[in-house]
């Protein structure tokens, strides 16, 4: 059941790359304006997005358990997890910066994982929802994703700058896992097609 006002149900396909509208009846496989492949919806949107999301759920565990960086001071190593780094920042009185890191590296990734799961469930089970609100949620998820790279960039700066004979900062195993989570969730959001939310609404 597709909503009547959708371009697809009226015989048009919108090119993903340049936005050109092509009549379905013309049976073109590529866009006349930009030559990219034409698909009415992202191909295998739900399957691909689910696969990427499940992998990031798995990687999210090591990303939070293992140390993300290790501070070596005169031979004694002090491991730091993501949460530990934030607690340290807040303890030393840098509350605004601590909050910023808390949002970027804990709240954003976890709410992204939950948000994409909800979107996938909604599209799969054809829940009758306020599609406008859900599309807004999708838009927020797609927008904030990249900001979680903050922690990864910060580690690259710290590892580079603090490299003296007495004190060293070394990247820990969680860094790889965390970077993978951020990138996989970005891909998951990119592969999710918000138009599926609208296709499933019967009362439009």
């Amino acid at each position, binding site marked *: 059941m597709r909503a009547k*006002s*959708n*371009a*697809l149900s*009226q015989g*048009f396909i*919108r090119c993903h*790359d*340049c*936005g*050109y*509208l092509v009549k379905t009846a013309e049976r073109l496989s590529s866009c*006349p*304006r*930009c*030559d*990219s492949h034409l698909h009415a919806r992202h191909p295998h949107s739900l399957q691909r997005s689910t696969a990427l999301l499940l992998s990031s759920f798995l990687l999210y565990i090591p990303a939070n358990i293992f140390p993300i960086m290790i501070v070596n001071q005169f031979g004694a190593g002090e491991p730091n997890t993501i949460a530990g780094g934030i607690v340290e*920042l807040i303890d*030393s009185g840098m509350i605004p*910066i601590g909050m*910023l*890191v808390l949002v*970027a590296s804990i709240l954003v990734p976890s709410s992204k994982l939950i948000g994409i799961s909800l979107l996938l469930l909604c599209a799969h089970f054809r829940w009758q929802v306020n599609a*406008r609100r859900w*599309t*807004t949620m999708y*838009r927020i998820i797609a927008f904030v994703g*990249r*900001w979680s*790279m*903050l*922690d*990864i*960039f*910060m*580690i*690259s*700066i*710290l*590892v*580079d*700058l*603090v*490299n*003296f*004979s*007495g*004190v060293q900062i*070394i*990247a820990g195993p969680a*860094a*790889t896992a965390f*970077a993978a989570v951020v*990138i996989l969730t*970005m891909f998951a959001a*990119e592969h999710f097609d*918000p138009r599926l*939310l*609208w*296709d499933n609404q019967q009362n439009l």
Partner: protein
Amino acid sequence: MNRSPDYHACPECDLLLKPALPNVGEKAHCPRCGLLLLRPHKQSIERTFALSIAGFILFFPANLLPMVGISMMGNANTGILFSGVLALFNDGMEAVAVVVFLASILFPLLHISLSLLISGHLYFNRANRYLVHWMRWMHHLDEWVMLEVYMLSIIVACVKLMSIAQLKFGWGLYAFVALIIINTLLTSGLDEELFWERITQLRNRKNNAS
């Protein structure tokens, strides 16, 4: 086939729409899902061309001059974008190093070069069969250019280090800030619909001439 289309569709809710023709300074939103569809800018091609040149030039000082210097217990060290990548690589974090390299150095450079190439061709009315491919690459790269995220990480890293070491900001950092400002103006002022229309025009003219 190459006439301008009679209809548009919203990319996020697929609502079939008559093309809105907002004036400069006006915005067109999708009436059903609220997505910002069009926001035409004044002289988008000229501005994109000018900003791309400036961004391309600034890219080099931002990457080559020292950004942050640190001194601690008599030792001193300076860092640039690439030295951070190298440090991660030497720590055995090859995957993370590659990601940082792509998001903070290679993709920004590619993005600026592509927008310089495209806007340059459009500005001088030159057709090129690769224009279409460049536009598509630029469109996909957009999300992976993370300069402003990197800027925030510099701030957080500096706050962390402030209490234990002396920090000094170099010219590289100022060039980097300027590059971010230019990059933001560039991406927000780029009118993709206008660019596509002009590319199609150029291609048709070339086909008719030959």
